[in-house]
């Protein structure tokens, strides 16, 4: 479009909705200025436990029904979920309970989204010729944040360096 390369590109919550996130990321890198940086946000797989089974259940219950019927049907379903359901048990995902349609639709009715483990993000970035400079907030990506026992805090080790293959799916941030 004739724009000059961008020094900073913020891409929050977009790539995980694309059919080909890697292609989307490549398009961003193509317009990133030399010495520029990207700020990105992608869905996290573990924190969204329960979301995708609920999405699949809604999709199957809705069948070929009208798109306009799906929100009401999905709300009815989420209200009727049994206590053992993983979405109901996930206290960290509350978007569908906030009352607004946009958050509800985005969480449970979006036609396309996927979530990532950190290792998968490392692979996605590496294959785009990028390196991650920091996860935010940094403290949430340190094992010691979640460990109180001194012996356990000493035990985590970084993953072996990547030698061409993908990062392990559960590899911690370096």
């Amino acid at each position, binding site marked *: 479009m004739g724009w000059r390369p961008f020094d900073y590109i913020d891409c929050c919550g977009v790539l995980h909705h694309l059919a080909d996130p890697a292609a989307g990321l490549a398009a961003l890198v193509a317009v990133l200025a030399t010495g520029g940086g990207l700020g990105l946000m992608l*869905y996290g797989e*573990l*924190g969204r436990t329960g979301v995708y089974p609920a999405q699949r259940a809604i999709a199957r219950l809705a069948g070929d029904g009208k798109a306009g019927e799906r929100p009401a049907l999905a709300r009815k379903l989420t209200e009727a979920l049994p206590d053992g359901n993983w979405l109901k048990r996930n206290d960290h995902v509350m978007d569908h309970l906030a009352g607004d349609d946009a958050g509800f639709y985005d969480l449970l009715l979006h036609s396309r989204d996927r979530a990532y483990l*950190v290792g998968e993000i490392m692979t996605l970035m590496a294959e785009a010729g*990028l390196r991650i*400079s920091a996860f935010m907030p940094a403290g949430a990506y340190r094992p010691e*944040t979640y460990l109180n026992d001194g012996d356990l805090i000493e035990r985590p080790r970084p993953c072996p360096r990547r030698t061409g293959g993908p990062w392990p799916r559960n590899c911690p941030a370096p």
Partner: protein
Amino acid sequence: MAEELSGALKTHAFYAVRRADKEHGAAQGFEPRMVTVLREMRADRLAASLSQLPGLNATLGGVSRRFEVSTQAPAIIALIDGKRSLRQIHGRLRARMGKTRAKMSWPDFQGEFSALFNILHPLNMLLFAGATLD
């Protein structure tokens, strides 16, 4: 491993640069010309709060934690405005302490700032905005 321990990271926010770019990325170490900034927070309010109670509660990855700060922390925070360099903050602190005959060398300040940074940065509250031109 942290995300597996947490189980609560429903999004991953991060910064990236080109792999070949060795010059840019997260700041390393503390240099006098670095400019620090509080994120989405008023320095005077945080400093006043920490003067009364030298600790803060925060939730990281779904875990609630309490962090204690040093007695110097409020004075340092009060001088963070997103424009002053560490050298300037140190200078102002020294000037104030000079009145009480206490001295704070650069290594002393570095130690104090480092302790504060190591609490506030992991919480995404304290960042580096850049550096002044020497």
